[in-house]
């Protein structure tokens, strides 16, 4: 029986499988079940900056349409954005406190930010509530043709600096892969002293319903095929930076998990496969990891972690190959 423990963000995890931020981690009851199923840690459902803004807008609309709630001249309506933020934050803080009371595994709080607005100052409340670490999910789609790449990059550093000055608990950043020079960006992020980098957040993708000429969401859940790109970047960067790496997106089986560990990840974040296969999937994946380690004669994860990273692999150029050339030319 192999030893599955790992260190991530300085926290001791009983195994490298972290249940990622999602609806699976939005209640104490759910998290208790995930712990029972064997999860090494959980990242709580993100507190979305955008969501708070949207809720403010919808509450304002409701208040103006339904004159039974908050007359236009009321001070409460005037400050409704603050009150909504307060209510959302209070509920989140309560979730952290209750979860910490009832579970033993590390609990990582998460904020989804799109700007360095003042509300991220509330990070210290998460620390006071007992969160073991904080994941900053910075998801900015580079779709604004007036914003320079450097400006988008700057937001990341501003957010990290602000939050770092507020809290002492370990910090990680769940980042996007849409950067002009991704390797340099990851390196610079690591140089801020951030404890961990999660590769990568997965954007909502719009799709079309061609029969009704309507917009719809595509692929709510990830597929295993999506993990390849993550594996590439984990492999390229794991030996070049000091921050811990966690792989996220498309990790659906023990094999997917093992590959990310071989590329150098300290942990993996899993969501879609649990939605599809239930919480028992956690035990299946951990069992698979255990069996593989036994077969290969590994007692600890550190014995093989990063074995196939770009630095250690016998074929480092494979990581940087971007064309299939010979592969396709040989298919007749």
């Amino acid at each position: 029986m192999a030893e599955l423990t790992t260190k991530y963000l300085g926290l001791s995890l009983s195994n490298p499988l972290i249940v990622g931020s999602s609806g699976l981690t939005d209640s104490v009851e759910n998290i208790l079940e995930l712990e029972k199923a064997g999860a090494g840690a959980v990242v709580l459902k993100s507190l979305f900056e955008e969501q708070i803004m949207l809720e403010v807008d919808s509450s304002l609309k409701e208040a103006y349409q339904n004159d039974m709630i908050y007359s236009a001249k009321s001070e409460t309506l005037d400050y409704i954005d603050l009150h909504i933020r307060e209510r959302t934050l209070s509920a989140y803080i309560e979730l952290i406190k209750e979860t910490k009371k009832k579970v033993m595994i590390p609990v990582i709080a998460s904020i989804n930010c799109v700007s360095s607005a003042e509300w991220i100052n509330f990070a210290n409340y998460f620390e006071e509530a007992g969160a073991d670490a904080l994941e900053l999910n910075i998801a900015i789609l580079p779709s604004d043709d007036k914003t320079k790449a450097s400006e988008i990059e700057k937001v990341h550093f501003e957010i990290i600096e602000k939050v770092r000055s507020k809290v002492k608990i370990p910090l990680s950043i769940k980042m996007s892969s849409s950067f002009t020079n991704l390797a340099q960006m990851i390196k610079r992020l690591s140089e801020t002293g951030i404890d961990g980098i999660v590769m990568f957040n997965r954007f909502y993708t719009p799709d079309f319903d061609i029969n009704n000429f309507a917009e719809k969401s595509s692929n709510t859940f990830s597929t295993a095929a999506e993990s390849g790109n993550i594996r590439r970047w984990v492999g390229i960067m794991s030996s070049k930076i000091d921050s811990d790496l966690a792989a996220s997106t498309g990790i659906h089986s023990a094999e997917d998990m093992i590959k990310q560990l071989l590329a150098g990840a300290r942990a993996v974040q899993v969501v879609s496969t649990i939605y599809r296969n239930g919480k028992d999937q956690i035990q299946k994946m951990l069992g698979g990891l255990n069996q593989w380690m036994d077969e290969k004669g590994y007692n600890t994860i550190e014995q093989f972690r990063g074995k196939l990273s770009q630095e250690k692999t016998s074929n480092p150029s494979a990581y940087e190959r971007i064309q299939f050339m010979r592969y396709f030319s040989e298919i007749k």
Partner: protein
Amino acid sequence: MENISEILKSERQQTWRDELRKSMKAKERTSIPRVKMPEQDPHVRNKNHEEVNMGLTDKMAMKEAQRCLDCVDPTCITGCPVGINIPKFIKRIEQGEFLESAKTLKETNALPAVCGRVCPQEVQCEANCFYVQKLKKDPVAIGFLERFAADYERNSGSISVPRVEHKNGIKVAVIGSGPSGLAVAGDMVKWGYDVTVFEALHEIGGVLKYGIPEFRLPNEIVDVEINNLKQMGVKFETNFIVGTTAKVDDLKKEGFKAFFVGSGAGLPKFMNIPGENYRRIFSSNEYLTRVNLMNAANPEYDTPVFSGKNVAVIGGGNTAMDSVRTSKRLGAARSMIIYRRSIEEMPARVEEVKHAQEEDVEFMNLNSPVEYFSDEKGNVNKMIVQKMELGEPDSSGRRRPVPLEGSEYEVEVDTVVVAIGVSPNPLIPASMPELEVTDWGTIKVDKETMQSSVEGIFAGGDIVRGGATVILAMGDGRRAAKGMHEYLKAKAPAK
């Protein structure tokens, strides 16, 4: 509604109204400038607690009443939440029949002297006046005239007590003695019910007493209107907290057949910024209640409130204006309003903003507090304020305040009053889990009958709206009374 239109039409056709209309040409009426309310000098009044507005004289009121054109379609009434017959009461003033005018007001409004003082007429009846709508001129001073008629009656010593129907012996309970509760009590007692109002505090009047300072609404005025209700037969129980002293079920056992919950929104809200728990940072509720109801302005009293020299009030509504003007009267050298939007966007009444400006209140608009600091005793001594700019409009159409990065600066303060809104009182909902509430803690009601999810329990005012004006709360109370009356009639058909 058609019925009301018919009544208004037939009253307008009465001979005295017709003759009065013809006594003066419309052009002459519209050429009269709007009356100016006599006021105490700003630099005298900001050192006393006497009422700022001194009221119109008979002559001024009659002249102003002449401006009213007694329109065929009195649009002003549509702006009044309790549907006062505005042209009729104004024409009674023009006629010199001031007591008749007061009687007209009381037909639909249990608290005319209060509403004449605190209603935001500029966005209600006066905003719908023909002068504003069609002539683009200053509206008839409906609020000033309402106050005049009610004050005249009070000072005349011949206060009319509305006629009360024969007692039917059915007991109804009103929880809370604020404007909505008093409106329910007034209507229900008129219809013959045995009404008891339960009040948690030692004084009757709710927000009218604890929330609105004497310089804007003297307690004595509220007491006169309450005495009127007492004379009509309404009973009042003070220091009685329904939900704690006794629950609704206990009162049911005492024979109460229906309930109106008007327990208001007395739970203060804060911004939850660092340092907000330091001493001498008050909620506006505490600050105003202590001064208005607990004699805290008197340093000789048991629990005086600290009279700071540099007072910052956070917010831009009427409560903020009441708090900042109170601080001036308590001796502050510098009284500041710190509000994150511009002055045009303040929810406070225009008149209150103007009065505060005249009284040397400093307006720091487009500013918002970020953090408070204290001395070694834990008393607030400094705050960091951040400048704001107005960004994109939100769904209400108002531009959102956005912080200006790096614009923070320090302000010396020794007292801070936070006036950014309130939450509904949670006591009744907490003691009745079956009562449906919104995410905001307000009680859900049927808009027409004001009945809650629990049969026989009606609600209105701030506990339903979260935050409302006095007159909106009274409008709720009147609708709830109608709903309650219909409910009780259906339960126990008349013999």
